């Protein structure tokens, strides 16, 4: 496996801004996506996820600022970079009169690196109805064709925009295994936007959160899991304050006897010190991605 620390970042945004009429879809973001990682791009509807992926793929042009994809300005991407880039859009645009098989052949003809064996295997794993016309495919099957069109040339950078939103749970699990296999075989970088946090949780090792066109989080997933926690705080003398001043306390609910806190701290002694300072007992548990999500998009909105 290549070292993540030495490989150049395959996607770098600097002061990247995209404005639609008078609304900033992306508001001057600075972002560097680390190579060989699986990056979860998280955010609410309208946060700017799709805009970012489309800017990265050169489908949209920035209003200001710059985006570099695989070392090249994304508005100037040319054959060498495009052949190493895979994009799976949320709703693919296809040539509707072709059958799935014809469309795969057609797209394959543009890519010298197209892997026929991989295509055959993925068609089997994802159960793609090859003989049907694209126009007659279900939403889920269209999404599968889109996935095949995005990965069979074995890209070094794979951008996935809600790639599993229309797939059933079995197909989603298989899709995740397909992505993991690409990682093992090609060591590629994957950026995946998804609302289905349970799925993302299984595969990402890096999290980028967007809110209202700004980056609110950019960190290794392990680190987030280790730093976010829920503390159940029980007072030993019946006198919990209505609020705690510690900056790592992000959410607080409860009464004078017991409180539930959502905290973020990298300090392993934080709970012990907090317990001593406030005369409380603390039991702590980590947060899953669903529980972390509102905290990830709410924080540092003004600091960035």
């Amino acid at each position, binding site marked *: *496996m290549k070292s993540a620390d030495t490989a150049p970042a395959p996607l770098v945004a600097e002061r990247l801004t995209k404005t639609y009429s008078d609304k900033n879809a992306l508001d001057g973001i600075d972002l560097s996506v680390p190579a060989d990682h699986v990056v979860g791009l998280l955010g609410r509807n309208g946060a700017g996820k799709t805009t970012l992926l489309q800017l990265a793929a050169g489908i949209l042009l920035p209003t200001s600022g710059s985006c570099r994809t695989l070392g090249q300005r994304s508005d100037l991407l040319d054959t060498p970079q495009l052949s190493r880039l895979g994009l799976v859009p949320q709703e693919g645009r296809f040539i509707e009169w072709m059958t799935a098989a014809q469309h795969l052949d057609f797209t394959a003809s543009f890519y010298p690196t197209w892997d026929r064996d991989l295509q055959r295997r993925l068609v089997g794993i994802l159960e793609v109805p090859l003989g049907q016309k694209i126009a007659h495919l279900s939403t889920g099957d269209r999404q599968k064709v889109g996935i095949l069109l995005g990965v069979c040339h074995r890209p070094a950078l794979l951008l996935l925009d809600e790639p599993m939103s229309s797939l059933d749970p079995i197909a989603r699990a298989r899709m995740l295994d397909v992505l*993991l296999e690409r*990682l093992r075989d090609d060591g590629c970088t994957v950026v995946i936007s998804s609302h289905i946090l349970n799925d993302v*949780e299984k595969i990402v090792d890096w999290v980028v959160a967007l809110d209202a066109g700004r980056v609110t989080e950019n960190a290794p997933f392990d680190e987030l*899991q280790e730093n976010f926690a829920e503390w159940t705080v029980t007072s030993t003398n019946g006198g919990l304050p209505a609020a705690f001043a510690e900056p790592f306390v992000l959410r607080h609910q409860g009464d004078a006897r017991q409180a539930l806190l959502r905290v973020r701290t990298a300090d392993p002694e934080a709970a012990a010190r907090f317990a001593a300072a406030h005369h409380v007992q603390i039991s702590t548990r980590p947060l899953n991605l669903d529980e972390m999500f509102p905290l990830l998009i709410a924080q540092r909105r003004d600091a960035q």
Partner: protein
Amino acid sequence: MLLVIDHHNGVPAYRQIMDQIKLQIAAGVLPAGTEMVSTRSLSAELSLNPMTISKAYGLLEREGVLERRRGQTLVVRALAAGEQQSSKLEPLRQHLASAAVLARQLGISREQALKLFRETLSSSQ
């Protein structure tokens, strides 16, 4: 080697792998010299990012739980007698720590808690 990863409990997957391997070594399920499954195969088996597996293996090697033999193969390191004892006690200590917090939250006295643990030990034998 049977590992079960809970993707939804908020504990990083590499940490779950490390804890389960340590527990299996302490319980004698993985005796000294047992070869670890390759990063690649374990990643496929558990549907996990290969980086997660190499992180877990790397940390276990640094902690001296695993060692590299003949250049590449990762195996379970043989423990000295004292280490063996503490490797067994550590997981139990972690469980009891959360039980201790619960006991205090429920206002159970030290004597009552110890009595309960003794009874639980005898009834599970």
